[in-house]
């Protein structure tokens, strides 16, 4: 690629290839942090600076009020994940990072769907909700709000099924996760 500082031109393709997102399996990182000012900004900034794309991000309290847990998912080959966890470890307020193995992890996400459903289609939508063990939490004459909880894939599947009825909007929490078994995450 054209080196900065020389006249050599850089093609757009080269630029895109250099900036291309590495693809690999999905990773769920569970990060235990101190509740201190700016922690989330530090983490988000680190990802931005090193060119990593966060797919989902969830932050919430833990059983100890001094700490929060950040669960984030990202796409990456093993090598950059390794670099990301090492960089995260350098943040003074980060206590613990786990790159959770999908098979040994219980992961859930919640989503709210607002779907256009009048008399004609309402029954059919409710059937789908039933199958996905969703909950109808609001009904008006022309729309339903549905709550679905489950794995990332389940929520994607639900979205695909209800979209044709008229998906007005959707809000998702991003996955939270915890390791299976007796040990702490």
């Amino acid at each position, binding site marked *: 690629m054209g080196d900065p500082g*020389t006249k050599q031109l850089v093609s757009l393709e080269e630029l895109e290839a250099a900036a291309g997102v590495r693809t690999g399996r999905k990773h769920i990182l569970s990060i235990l942090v101190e509740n201190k000012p*700016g922690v989330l*900004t*530090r983490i988000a900034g680190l990802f931005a600076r090193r060119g990593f794309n966060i797919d989902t991000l969830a932050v919430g309290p833990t059983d100890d009020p001094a700490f929060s847990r950040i669960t984030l998912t990202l796409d990456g080959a093993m*090598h950059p994940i390794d*670099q990301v966890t090492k960089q995260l470890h350098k943040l*003074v*307020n980060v206590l613990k990072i786990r790159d959770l193995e999908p098979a040994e992890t219980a992961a859930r996400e919640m989503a709210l769907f607002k779907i256009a459903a009048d008399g004609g289609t309402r029954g059919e939508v409710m059937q789908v909700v039933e199958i996905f063990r969703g909950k109808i939490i609001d009904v008006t004459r022309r729309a339903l709000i549905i709550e679905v909880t489950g794995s990332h894939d389940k929520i994607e599947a639900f979205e695909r099924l209800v979209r044709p009825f008229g998906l007005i909007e959707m809000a998702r929490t991003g996955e939270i996760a915890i390791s299976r078994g007796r040990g702490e995450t």
Partner: protein
Amino acid sequence: MMRAVDAIMECLKAEGVDVVFGYPGGANLPTYDAMYDSGIRHILVRHEAGGGHAAEGYAKASGKVGVCFATSGPGATNIVTPLTDAMMDSVPVVFFTGQVRTDLLGTDGFQEADTFGITMPIVKHSFLIRHPTEIPRAVHEAFHIARTGRPGPVLIDMPTDLSKVEIEYEPVGDVRLPGYQPTTEGNSKQIRLAAKALSNARRPVIYAGGGVINADASAELTELVEFDNLPVTCTLMALGAFPATHPQWLGMLGMHGTRAANYAMDEADLIVAVGARFDDRITGKLSEFAPRAKFIHIDIDPAEISKNVPAHIPIVGDAKNILGRLLNEYRALGPDSSRLSEWWERIERWRAQHPLRYEDSEDTEIKPQYLIQALYQATNGDCILSSDIGQHQMWAAQYFHFSKPRRWINSGGLGTMGFGLPAAMGAAVARPDVPSVLISGDGSIQMNIQELATCATYGIPVKVVIMNNGYLGMVRQWQELFWDRRYSAVEMSQWPDFVKLAEAMGCAGVRLEDKTTLVDDLRAAMAIEGPVVIDARVTKEECVYPMIAPGEAARNMVG
């Protein structure tokens, strides 16, 4: 009970701080009031950037933590460059910034800037004070974080109202940082593996970086390499970590390193990186970097290992600890140094064929390379040499033979023009027993030249040598070599008159133009008491060679 700012002074004294570089303003008035009779020496710089770099120079020369004070808003934004510089070069500095009153935070108050947010990517850590009782602990944690592990800058941002509150002060004996536990002890198994790899290597090279100096591990490094006659090269940051006069010294490596060093890296079968980070100025084209080598990578920062070049034997920890133990393991294996004789023959050939060279002038004109050689002679090499950024920096790295650590102070990672003068000033304050000399360019010196007045005010005897070629020389060199000699915005004109400027700033000024008397003239000029500016006129268009052109492999060095 005492004011929080008075507690800060107590904390500083407990940390052994004897001098602070800084600049007062509205938001840090309380801090300056506390400093007034604290007994801590304060150097009033002429620009906060000067204060930050001076604290860096102080830290690099002494090995202690440097301290810099600045006010809110513009004071804080002015330290962004030194903060970044200290982050890139792992320099331990604690920065204290004033901040607007808590009730004004976020309202775009007068001299308000989001210092905490602006500096977040460029600090090792930072504290935003939210309650006055947090202050003493934050100060001690800041010093602890700055000086331990991989050193770096730490910032404490303190709203002015909180700093005036009276608090109970008790000395803080410990720090509690559960998320900060640097690994210092290297893994024994890895160290044994490394010793074994070394004793089997036929073409080994030791590649030492600035981490050796930070870890105070020069003696251990020298002992290790002397034990088995290993060739050594150093990065720009590590010059002085191994004596340049030593027969096992290959010279600096990288873009403007020696051929012997770069060719040795290229052909090595084993490279031991110690406190170095495989920067792009070292590796050149990464895919063709040291293609035959296995890598042992010793570093205190695990994130550096395998970041750019995959390590075969990673060892995380303190270089002093690891090198000492590595030598013990290595001794036990009883390697036969004669296995390296073929390798040394090859290296000797490169050395003989490709010494550093330049064409001397036929008249009295001073060649820039000769200026460095003359400076080395005039000082007997016995000084702390600080540098700015550009051609003069590379020539100094090539032609000045550093024999001790902490005698070469420059901005390596960030390449900050304007770093030199304040850094040399900080070094002079840290080590009044060693002459402080600055080599700068006519471009670099004009960024932060205001600090000449600081030197004059406090009688800080920095000897400034300006390698004056009337150009931004390094940029001109790249335009000459890679951009068809279209010299765009690199000519500096004849202004200012540095001799008159020096005098106006309260310093002595001397102009030197004749190479035949240069060594004596330099000696005489540097013998003048107090700060001196030497305007040395050199060849206008000269290039730094040899060179690995950008994006090229080391074996294709030119010049």
